[in-house]
């Protein structure tokens, strides 16, 4: 069983974010593996542990993002591919086109991705890649089980869970609710240094940099208008509970 996992290096959303002149100022030292991708990787590792398979992490990003491939290798991926590109201005379509160029002609059972990136929260790339490769897909997976010939993906829908049989080759995108991604141990970190990482340029994939199409544009960023400061109530529980209930009744007419 061969599973490719698409991973992305993203800003740590817990880090402070500032905007200057409509642009984001990010702390370049606080870049992490997208949490949803980490769940996809964990799912792939578990699937291949059961079937003796091979997991390869694929990342598009600048040289520095290579550290995120090392993280994936330390978690247990067997190898990595780093498609080196300056991704400034890329939208989901740009990523998807490069990924599908990479996957075209490759043999695999499944491609796993996070269901969205935690910085843009767009959730488009997985479906785009599946469509461009003309393979079936399931999004928002919360569970995967199965083997070589096919897996059953449990997808969280709007009003319940859908169990979907996904044949080979297929693609699934993962929610971070499906598992707790493993933390690399010392052994994993040591082993990761000996695992192969293939470095590719866009040229190697036959992609002309100037031909990368972006469909959409980010024209700026704005602070979300903050909430007005609220009131805090401390003291005897019965008393403060009644006070707040009364205030709510006045404000919203809950009655």
């Amino acid at each position: 069983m061969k599973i490719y996992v698409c991973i992305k290096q993203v800003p740590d959303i817990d880090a402070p974010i500032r905007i200057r002149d409509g642009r984001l100022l990010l702390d370049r030292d606080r870049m992490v593996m997208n949490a949803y991708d980490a769940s996809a990787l964990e799912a792939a590792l578990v699937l291949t542990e059961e079937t003796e398979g091979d997991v390869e992490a694929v990342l598009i990003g600048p040289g520095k993002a290579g550290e995120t491939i090392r993280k994936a290798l330390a978690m247990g991926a067997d190898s990595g591919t780093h498609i080196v590109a300056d991704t400034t201005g890329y939208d989901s379509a740009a990523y998807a086109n490069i990924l599908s160029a990479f996957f075209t002609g490759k043999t695999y059972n499944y491609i796993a991705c996070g269901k969205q990136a935690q910085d843009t929260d767009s959730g488009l790339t997985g479906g785009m890649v599946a469509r461009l490769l003309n393979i079936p897909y399931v999004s928002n997976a919360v569970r995967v089980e199965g083997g070589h010939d096919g897996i059953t993906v449990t997808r969280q829908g709007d009003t319940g869970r859908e169990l979907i049989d996904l044949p080979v080759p297929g693609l699934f995108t993962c929610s971070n609710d499906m598992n707790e991604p493993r933390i690399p141990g010392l052994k994993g970190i040591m082993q990761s240094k000996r695992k192969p990482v293939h470095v590719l340029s866009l040229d190697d994939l036959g992609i002309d940099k100037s031909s990368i199409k972006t469909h959409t544009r980010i024209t700026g960023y704005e602070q979300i208008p903050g909430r007005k400061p609220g009131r805090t109530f401390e003291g005897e529980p019965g008393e403060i509970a009644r006070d707040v209930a009364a205030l709510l009744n006045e404000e919203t007419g809950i009655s």
Partner: protein
Amino acid sequence: MSTLLTYVSIQDGRIKRSSLDLLSRCSEEAEKNGHRSAALLIDESASGYASELSTFGLSKIYIVEGPRFKNRLNGPLLKAFSTVLKQVKPAVLSLDSTEESKDVLGALSASTGAPVLPDLSQFELTENGVKGKRPVMASKILSLVEAVGKPVIFSVRSKSHVQAPARTPSRADVEKIDVSVTADDMRASLREIRKAKGSGMDLSEAETIVAAGRGVRDEKGLNLIYELAGVLQAGIGASRALTESGVFDSSLQIGQTGKVVSPQLYIAVGISGAIQHVAGMTNSRIIVAINSDPSAPIFDIADYGIVGDLYKVLPPFIEEIRSFKRNTFI
């Protein structure tokens, strides 16, 4: 004159209200810009719902129906959307942001070449496309986005718009569009659906939500949550801690991963307020937080923060609200 096409989502046998909010907004936009507003219904028996759209000033209602569309598998849905886009050639296709629409947006964009802007909280039409705002970075920041093309596909968060008053009922043309679903579209196949157990209320439409977090430790705490929700006729939601432990179904999870909600009143009980949770509820009109830890981040965004043990605070809180309710009926 162009067509603004809105997908009206049918879930569990009824039209989603958030779809109608969006449809109303698109009809306004059409009127303002001299365009036509049209709706698209896709369902096993979609025609039956067309009459519910008579007060939205529509020029046309497009119908795709058949047994293949019963379970909203992305293969047939995708075929339906791309066939409709090819035939209708709208200027835009708008959808409300649901797991159903998230499931097809990317693939639809790839198969039609149409640009897509997902999960907008605001939008407006431009000369040759759409621009809008969307929350990013766990809803800490708004990103301003635009797309040029015909059509542009975009999805809109629920409760981003208030429905305009109903118009005088009018008869829109109903046109059925044949979609040929092939074996190729059915490669991923549905084995079973497990419906969520819960309050039965669609959280994205609820006016009041009571949400439980880690602080709700036991049966007694859960009963308090059910009681409060009952008194307020509220939907029940949960933080990741309680959906992950299986106490609540994961369809009730509110946050960056789960549902994004913006009710009139949100009561967070025993929820600390991790940014992933806050991302899903920060646009609620009034936020009440009950937590025993005065330094819990949820208090930073709460309008009314009650520092105290929920087991001691909730009983008198519920009693007081019940007494308000009772008084109005006397």
